[in-house]
């Protein structure tokens, strides 16, 4: 096994292929699995040890056995290591004898157990127990009346006495076995066990030669006893198996015809011992206690006081998983293989092949087996393809087990899925053990599941659908909405018992519990746990395909097997066998009707028919039922079909309303109301009919079973009516809730819409406000600037006024100056005339006497002329004078005051002028800067207002400029 692992990294610890997308996750979990495994094997070995001690602490035999067990373990280890070596050897000479055992862990166990058989031989009590059990099976097969007595007597050891005659046959076989066993240990003692076994096998094949021609004798030694340490468990479970068998036999003898309500008919007959037994069983099954098997076991304990057994502890251990190396045997113990096994039965089945072939031409019923054979041949290479253990020999074993089962139970024959079960079992145990385990699983746990019609399988789907509706209404609502039916996915889960649906570790863990509990409860619990785990993810899917794909892939990656098993076992304690039985009873009729119609192939059954039309036909059915009944009273099948027909419609209440997932809640509402109304009316009708029939039957036939059956049927129907009424009420309340929810949803939708609108409006408002604020800011800024420009303008105007004033002053001064100039000119003229007069006078005098003084005065006079001339020139160029304040050459004759005055004016004017220029320049600059700012504002916020402002501002500026130029012009004029 180990080297196989090394070779194939894409296979898991059990040699199964991993999907590529799961390899990574498997690796993550591989260590966890390993740790769990270690813990498990420790716990189990401790548990088994404890059991042995507590049960037979005083017995030295037990100690011996335990010692031998330890030896066996050692031996097994040796064998394993030896085998590894042998396998490494490419030329495997032993392969023939080693045969199918090569890569079977189960076979390793088998080898290790040979010494135990020694013990069995030496231990008489042990053998006695076995013998006492075997006859039971013999009897069951032959169905002798005595078995009732036998089965009613529980304490096994008493059987010996009461069954001596029967055991004769058995005993005659016994020596044979003892010989076999006595031979075996001898061979086992030899260093290499394999050759020993070879000889043994050949001897056996000699013995059974004629049986084994077909199957190549070398591999028939395929049975092994479980290790004695597990006998405690085995015995407990065996008693359970007997219980079940007992119950079944009762049914079979009392009602050979398969009435739907088998259980209740039993009460009408049978021995008292069986009655008690049965009541115990019913008590167990109907008990709503947490665990069926615990309850059951306590009963068993009473019946078999020799062993007090801690079921709770074992249950806990099973939930945590069975260790790999014990799994094969523990499973056998759980299924009760030892109790079930009938010596040579398996070989006998295989030997039938020859007979079949010989007699096939005159036996039509053998056509079916041939069909199965063909199907088996098709499926064998498609069972765990590529698994290292399923080589040529593994496939032969698989074929034999499947063929044997098909012959063992022809009502089932072969059904796809069994190939996987048998394959799995063959990986864990020898061939015949696998066969008996398969028999146990299929005949008891999955009775009616894989038959031609697959009725129980369909019933279980309806039950599961109801459960899931109850547990996960939201999820189912969503799936309904997507148009996904849960059964699409859960159907394959149940049918394959999760093989290929979950990772192997999880499959095996689920199987541990399934086999331990001995019923299908764990299937439901596991499926519910999967829905719980993956429901939240499923609710997010948007179409049917995605939902299914998601669920499939999520389930396929459920590597956390402990989480799964614990969720299943702890979370759904309310899902018990009793509950399931009840639900199955409820849903079975619906399936039966469909099956019947299919087989008849008559009336076309269409699902597309609306609920209303179904109800209509249903309403009118009871009437016709009465008529028909009168015509053919006592025809049970007829009655059955009709009553189950009715049941179909009743359960249609839950099924069809689910199937036709109505998109409109209103439609749903109406149909539901209709349904609940019609239900009670129809029931009343039916009641009447049944009463009528009851009377008729009593009068005419006094046919007891029928009456009983009718009574039972009546009770059942009444019960169903009650449940239907309850269901109707439930639906009604659900409906009200739905309506309310709908209203609420609408309202909340409206409120949401309105709220959305309000929010939108608020948003708009806020935006508007913001805009407004921005605009205001711009306006303020513009205003400020306006103010500034206004101020500037005012300043400029003031300046202009001041300048004007200054100009006026200057003008006045100028006029004064001109006036004084005029005066001065006048005075100059006067002075000139005076001077001329004086000159004339003096010349007159000089003529008389020329004096030097006159020369000097003549020199002086030109200067004056020049001065005068200069003045005249100056007078003529007034403007030029004003413009360039050049130095004035004034005659010294001019009065000094006037000269200084002009200068003074000039001096006053000059700074004023300068100041004005500076001011104008400053103004210009200011204007320039404001212009710039305005432009900035305009760029940033090109609102029309701003534009307006700029225009205004510009005009302001222009006016300022105008005023300035005016001022200048004015000044010019003034000058």
């Amino acid at each position: 096994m180990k080297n196989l692992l090394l070779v194939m990294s894409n296979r898991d610890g059990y040699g199964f292929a991993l999907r590529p997308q799961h390899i990574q996750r498997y690796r993550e979990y591989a260590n966890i699995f390993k740790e769990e495994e270690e813990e498990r094997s420790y716990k189990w070995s401790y548990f088994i040890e404890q059991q042995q001690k507590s049960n037979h602490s005083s017995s030295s035999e037990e100690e011996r056995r335990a010692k031998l067990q330890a030896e066996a373990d050692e031996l097994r280890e040796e064998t394993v290591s030896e085998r590894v070596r042998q396998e490494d050897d490419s030329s495997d000479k032993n392969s023939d004898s080693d045969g199918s055992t090569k890569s079977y862990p189960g076979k390793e166990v088998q080898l290790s157990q040979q010494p135990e058989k020694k013990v069995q031989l030496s231990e008489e009590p042990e053998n006695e127990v076995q013998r006492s059990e075997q006859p039971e099976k013999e009897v069951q097969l032959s169905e002798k009346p005595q078995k009732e007595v036998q089965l009613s007597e529980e304490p096994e050891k008493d059987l010996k006495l009461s069954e001596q005659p029967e055991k004769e046959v058995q005993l005659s076989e016994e020596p044979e076995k003892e010989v076999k066993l006595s031979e075996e240990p001898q061979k086992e003692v030899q260093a290499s066990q394999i050759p020993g076994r070879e000889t043994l096998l050949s001897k056996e094949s000699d013995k059974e030669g004629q049986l084994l021609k077909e199957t190549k004798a070398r591999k028939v030694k395929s049975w092994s006893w479980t290790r004695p340490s597990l006998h405690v468990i085995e015995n407990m479970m065996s008693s359970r198996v007997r219980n079940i068998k007992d119950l079944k036999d009762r049914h079979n003898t009392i009602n050979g015809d398969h009435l739907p309500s088998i259980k209740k008919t039993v009460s009408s007959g049978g021995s008292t011992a069986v009655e008690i037994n049965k009541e115990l069983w019913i008590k167990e099954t109907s008990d709503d206690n947490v665990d069926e098997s615990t309850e059951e076991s306590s009963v068993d304990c009473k019946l078999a006081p020799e062993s007090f057994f801690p079921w709770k502890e074992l249950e806990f251990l099973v939930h945590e998983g069975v260790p790999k190396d014990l799994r094969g045997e523990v499973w056998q113990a759980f299924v009760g293989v030892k109790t079930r096994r009938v010596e040579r039965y398996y070989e006998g089945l295989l030997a039938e092949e020859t007979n079949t072939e010989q007699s096939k031409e005159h036996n039509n019923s053998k056509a079916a087996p041939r069909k199965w054979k063909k199907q088996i041949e098709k499926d064998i290479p498609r069972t765990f393809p590529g698994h290292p253990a399923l080589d040529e020999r593994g496939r032969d074993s698989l074929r034999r087990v499947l063929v044997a089962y098909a012959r063992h139970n022809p009502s089932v024959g072969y059904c796809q899925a069994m190939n996987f079960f048998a394959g799995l079992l063959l990986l864990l145990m020898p061939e015949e053990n696998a066969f008996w385990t398969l028999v146990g699983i299929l005949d008891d746990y999955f009775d009616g599941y894989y038959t031609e019609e697959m009725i129980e399988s369909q019933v279980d789907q309806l039950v599961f659908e109801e459960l899931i509706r109850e547990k996960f209404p939201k999820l189912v609502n969503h799936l309904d909405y997507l148009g996904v039916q849960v059964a699409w996915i859960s159907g394959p889960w149940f049918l394959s018992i999760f093989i290929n649906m979950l990772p192997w570790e999880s499959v095996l863990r689920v199987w541990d519990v399934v086999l331990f509990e001995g019923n299908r409860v764990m299937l439901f619990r596991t499926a519910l746990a999967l829905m719980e785990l993956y429901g939240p993810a499923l609710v997010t899917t948007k179409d049917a395909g995605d939902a299914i794909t998601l669920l499939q892939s999520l389930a396929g990656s459920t590597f956390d097997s402990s989480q799964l098993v614990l969720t299943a076992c702890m979370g759904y304690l309310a899902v018990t066998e009793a509950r399931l039985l009840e639900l199955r009873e409820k849903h079975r009729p619906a399936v039966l009707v469909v099956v019947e119609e299919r087989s008849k192939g008559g009336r076309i059954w269409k699902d597309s028919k609306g609920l209303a039309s179904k109800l209509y036909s249903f309403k009118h059915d009871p009437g016709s039922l009465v008529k028909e009944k009168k015509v053919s009273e006592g025809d049970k099948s007829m009655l059955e079909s009709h009553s189950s027909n009715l049941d179909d419609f009743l359960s249609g209440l839950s099924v069809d309303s689910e199937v036709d997932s109505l998109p409109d809640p209103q439609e749903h509402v109406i149909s539901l109301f209709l349904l609940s109304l019609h239900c009670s009316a129809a029931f009343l009708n039916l009641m009447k009919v049944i009463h009528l029939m009851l009377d008729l039957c009593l009068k005419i036939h006094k046919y007891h079973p029928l009456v009983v059956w009718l009574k039972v049927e009546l009770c059942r129907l009444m019960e169903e009516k009650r449940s239907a009424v309850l269901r109707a009420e439930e639906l009604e309340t659900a409906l009200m809730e739905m309506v309310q929810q709908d209203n609420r949803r609408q309202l909340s939708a409206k409120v949401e819409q309105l709220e959305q609108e309000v929010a939108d409006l608020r948003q708009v408002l806020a935006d508007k406000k913001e805009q407004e604020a921005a605009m205001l800011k711009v306006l303020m800024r513009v205003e400020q600037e306006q103010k500034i420009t206004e101020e500037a303008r005012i300043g400029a105007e003031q300046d202009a006024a001041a300048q004007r004033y200054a100009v006026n002053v200057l003008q006045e001064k100028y006029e004064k100056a001109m006036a004084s100039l005029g005066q001065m000119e006048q005075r100059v003229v006067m002075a000139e005339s005076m001077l001329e007069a004086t000159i004339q006078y003096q010349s007159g005098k000089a003529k008389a006497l020329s004096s030097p003084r006159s020369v000097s005065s003549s020199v002086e006079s030109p200067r004056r002329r020049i001065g005068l001339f200069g003045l005249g020139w100056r007078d003529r160029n007034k403007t030029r004078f004003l413009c360039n304040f050049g130095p004035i050459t004034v005659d010294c004759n001019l009065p000094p005051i006037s000269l200084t005055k002009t200068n003074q004016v000039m001096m006053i004017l000059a700074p004023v002028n300068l100041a004005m220029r500076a001011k104008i320049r400053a103004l210009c600059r200011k204007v320039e800067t404001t212009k710039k700012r305005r432009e900035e504002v305009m760029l940033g916020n090109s609102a029309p207002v701003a534009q307006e402002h700029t225009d205004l501002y510009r005009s302001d500026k222009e006016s300022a400029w105008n005023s300035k130029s005016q001022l200048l012009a004015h000044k010019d004029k003034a000058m």
Partner: protein
Amino acid sequence: MGCSSSLPDRSTGRLGGLNVSESGGVADAKNLRVKLVLLGDSGVGKSCIVLRFVRGQFDPTSKVTIGASFLSQTIALQDSTTVKFEIWDTAGQERYAALAPLYYRGAAIAVIVYDITSPETFTKAQYWVKELQKHGSPDIVMALVANKADLHEKREVPTQDGIDYAEKNGMFFIETSAKTADNINQLFEEIGKRLPRPSST
């Protein structure tokens, strides 16, 4: 159970997925979503056809399908519509026929497969056609597929028989080989073309 998980969806034109219809189709003129069911005798290659179509793989030793398995695949047609096939691959053994209505109910397309080397499977295919005519939805599109066309030297069902039967029953007929991938995509494309289109209003 050949296949219990699907590839990550390759579809480009995904739907809102909110419109669910019972007939398995979806009312979007450009993006169709259809439920397809594969029926036929055991071992004719139903799972292999699906695997070839969805994953482009062929495994001669595929596993037995228990119950049914689901895969989906989207293709684009020439007229730029996309079709998402939701494929239910059912178990072939006769008794599983009891469960088949669960899967073909509401399917828009049924692909009925037989094996050209086995006349028995052809008979079985005819059984399925009748079953669907009786119990399937009335407007179901049916295709008759003759698989294992690569084994022509072992052929026992003449092509003409298939063609005739398909014609008589208003079906679409094609011979395929999942092994060589012959006609597999064509099969689904042809089906896509034949789908009733929702009137685009």
